[in-house]
């Protein structure tokens, strides 16, 4: 199914190096731009670009290289259609979660279900959503994330810390809202 039909000399290297990362590409695009159709468009465009620039790829981690292109493609798209979203970048206001009892937070987090996690992650500013997706879903190291984002490792560490704090707060809030809703019924 893979290479049998390929004439010698054709871009088999591209197929072996870049195609295996299609799931990773789609996952990132999906979490960055949202709609499945938009995500498919991003991946297709990114793969064409990747093919075009393949001459400039110098070995190294192919997944980071592909995801970097997917990311740039998705950001250009977001800039065009939802510029406000990119601007909400660094909301420094950190609300300390109002959970007094030690361990209570963990219990709240533990009871968060799939829908809540999806919603909380979706609500995060795109820069934060991105680092969580790359670290927790894609399992990338700091160095790999830094490569994808084109920033120093220190920046990755601080974005990741802020992203986690925000995600945690959103989860706790969603959980609390649900409990209140349940009481009112």
């Amino acid at each position, binding site marked *: *199914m893979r290479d049998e039909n*390929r*004439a010698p000399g*054709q*871009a*088999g*290297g*591209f*197929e072996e*190096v870049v*195609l*295996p*990362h*299609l*799931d990773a*590409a*789609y*996952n990132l695009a999906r*979490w960055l731009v949202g709609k*499945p159709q938009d*995500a*498919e468009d991003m*991946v*297709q465009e990114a*793969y*064409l670009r990747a*093919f*075009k620039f*393949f*001459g*400039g*790829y110098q*070995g190294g981690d192919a*997944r980071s290289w592909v995801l970097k292109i997917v990311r740039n493609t998705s950001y250009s798209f977001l800039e065009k259609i939802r510029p406000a979203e990119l601007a909400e970048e660094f909301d420094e206001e950190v609300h300390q979660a109002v959970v007094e009892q*030690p361990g209570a*937070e*963990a219990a709240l*987090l*533990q009871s*968060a*279900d*799939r829908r809540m*996690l*999806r919603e909380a*992650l979706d609500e995060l500013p795109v820069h934060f959503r991105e680092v*969580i997706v790359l*670290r*927790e*879903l*894609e*399992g990338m*190291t*700091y160095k790999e994330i830094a490569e994808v984002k084109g920033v120093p490792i220190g920046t990755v*560490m601080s974005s*990741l*810390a802020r992203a*986690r704090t925000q*995600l*945690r707060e959103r*989860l706790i809030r969603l959980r609390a809202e649900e409990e209140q809703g349940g009481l009112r019924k």
Partner: protein
Amino acid sequence: MACENKELLLRAYFDGELDVVRSIEFEEHLKTCPQCGRELHEQQVMRDSLQAANLYERAPEALRAKVRAAIPGEAPPQPIPIGRRPVLEWLAVAAAILIAVFLGAKVLPSTGGKTQNLMAEEIAASHIRSMQAGHLLDVESTDQHTVKPWFAGKLDFAPPVVDLATQGFPLVGGRLDYIDHRNVAALVYQRQKHFINVFIWPEEVKDAKLPEMQTMQGYNLLFWSHGGMVFCAASDLNVTELRQLAELLER
């Protein structure tokens, strides 16, 4: 919140980014600091929930086909006169060959002592390949007494084969696979709609504390060692249930 001065360390420790020496130092600190312990636990709870929620979005098959079709090299050969072939295409071909040579040279000589990350990548790739039609099983049987002898002539070790249907993990069969330059056994279990590949190979692990959980391309990989063998369970199944399977297999 972690205690003062320790926040950076805690995060790097949690993400597996500390070297051995500093990891041990931090573990020493953890023993005496309930505050950092609590923070670490909370982070772990959030990570587990994220992983259990299966949030990874896989590329639809239709997209795969579209991307393949759109790559110029993949189209049926076109009768373009040699002189007029787009320069970039030639460059891409040249680069592809160079990279293939480079990768080949870089990966092949490293026998045995492959880093965990490379091995995890290989295992994830094997798992993905096995999920494609017709690649999952070499021997299809829910009977451990059929699967075990099947391996006998094919491997120089005898992987433990048990059916765990009554515990919710029916054995569906086995397969020969190839990881880190050696033949390994792959047992395939099912959990509801999820398939789990359990890769097994003999290896004496001196310090039995292997890196445990790893996520690779959205798949969960769980490593452990038992009775002179190393096991790695790979699946899109959540970590909690994978750990259950690991415990059952250790009995």
